[in-house]
């Protein structure tokens, strides 16, 4: 399975994270997204006329939507991540998968504006991003009241992987995560998962590993 990937893209990270969590080995093909705009070049446009990344290729299957990639990786390697045990759970997964595009359009657009100077009305994007974070916070508070730590269940699902990256990187776009205690706990729960991987801006929980011991003179 081949992933056309850019290390700083939260959408590409969704696919990498899902693969890591489900134990799938990806063949990574780095794309020069910035400054080369390789995703708009003839080779990648032939694969994905929308000119976006990530692109996941497996045989003659070509996926260009990150939510579809999460479904494919989970269904192939670890179906419990699909979260379709009950009607309620399946509906919640779909609700948050669709919601995740609003995170991309608000927090993701604010991040592109701040980091790559992409055009956009930053005040409007911040407002939309904060509205989305408040919705996520309220959803997580209700899940805690139901005794569940993740968005659709007490187990993590593709919905959590879909929402996590753009939320965790909100500060890159100038949106603070300080006001959201439930999001903070959820982010910790995701970063505590077996197989979790980092991306620039999203670090692992250092406390999960013992303190490194250095002898004097070694540093």
């Amino acid at each position, binding site marked *: 399975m081949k992933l056309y990937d850019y290390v700083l893209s939260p959408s590409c990270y969704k696919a990498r994270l899902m693969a890591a969590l489900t134990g799938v080995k990806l063949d990574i093909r780095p794309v020069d997204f910035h400054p080369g705009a390789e995703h708009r070049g003839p080779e990648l446009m032939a694969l994905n006329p929308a000119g976006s990344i990530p692109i996941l290729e497996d045989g003659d299957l070509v996926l260009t939507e990150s939510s579809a990639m999460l479904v494919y990786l989970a269904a192939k390697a670890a179906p419990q991540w699909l979260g379709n045990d009950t009607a309620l759970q399946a509906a919640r997964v779909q609700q948050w998968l669709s919601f995740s595009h609003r995170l991309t359009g608000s927090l993701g657009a604010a991040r592109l504006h701040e980091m790559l100077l992409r055009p956009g009305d930053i005040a409007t994007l911040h407002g939309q991003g904060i509205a989305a974070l*408040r919705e996520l916070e*309220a959803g997580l*508070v*209700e899940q805690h*009241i*139901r005794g569940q730590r993740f968005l659709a269940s007490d187990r993590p699902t593709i919905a959590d992987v879909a929402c996590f990256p753009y939320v965790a990187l909100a500060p890159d776009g100038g949106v603070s995560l*300080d*006001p959201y*205690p*439930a999001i*903070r*706990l959820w982010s*910790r729960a995701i970063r505590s998962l077996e197989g979790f991987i980092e991306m620039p801006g999203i*670090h692992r*929980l*250092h*406390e999960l590993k013992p*303190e*490194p011991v*250095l*002898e*004097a*003179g*070694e*540093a």
Partner: protein
Amino acid sequence: MLPYPSGSWMPVALSADLPAGTVMPAQTPVGPIALWRSRSGRAAAFADRCPHRGMRLSRGFVRGEALSCIYHGWSYAQAGNCLRIPAHPGLTPPETIGVATQPVEDSGGIIWISVGEPTARPPRFDGLAPLRSMIVEAGIAALEAAAGTKADGGLLDYAQNAQTLRLLLTPQGKARTLMHVLVDEGTGPAKRIAASRAAETLRRTAEDILRSDVAQ
């Protein structure tokens, strides 16, 4: 004038939002703090600034009974003294290296910070249980207008759908309020979810009132 005179207690977070082995940021009248709980469960409040390079300590991590800075790993004991500087493993940090601390009380599910030396114990709200904390981008007057009641001793009653929420309010500047939502002890899940949604409605109404006041 500070709404919290020296020696009084301020509710900065809910105990449930700070599990053992974690750190979170909080705001106080004397500046931002890193609120953290050691592995054994003791809460502490530090000025949110590592004395080494000024990094926010609330971005750090807790190992055992110490808080470490995310930048260069300097770690601090609950009393604020520096325990360890990883780049100098053989060095015992001098006593002069330390972080300013503030008194903390963790009682009734609420974490209280004292601004200066406390003169009494923090208030108790018997029969009430904390539900969630929220930031409201409006002052207390707008929240009172939205609830249709007046705050009394920092507590605002808000009746909605046959239950009364008790809102513990802390001003954070002129047009921002930290709101802890309390409900009757023993309230079941369905009513607690309804209370959380009611608090969202109240926040929306208060922020709309503030916006229309500003527009006038």
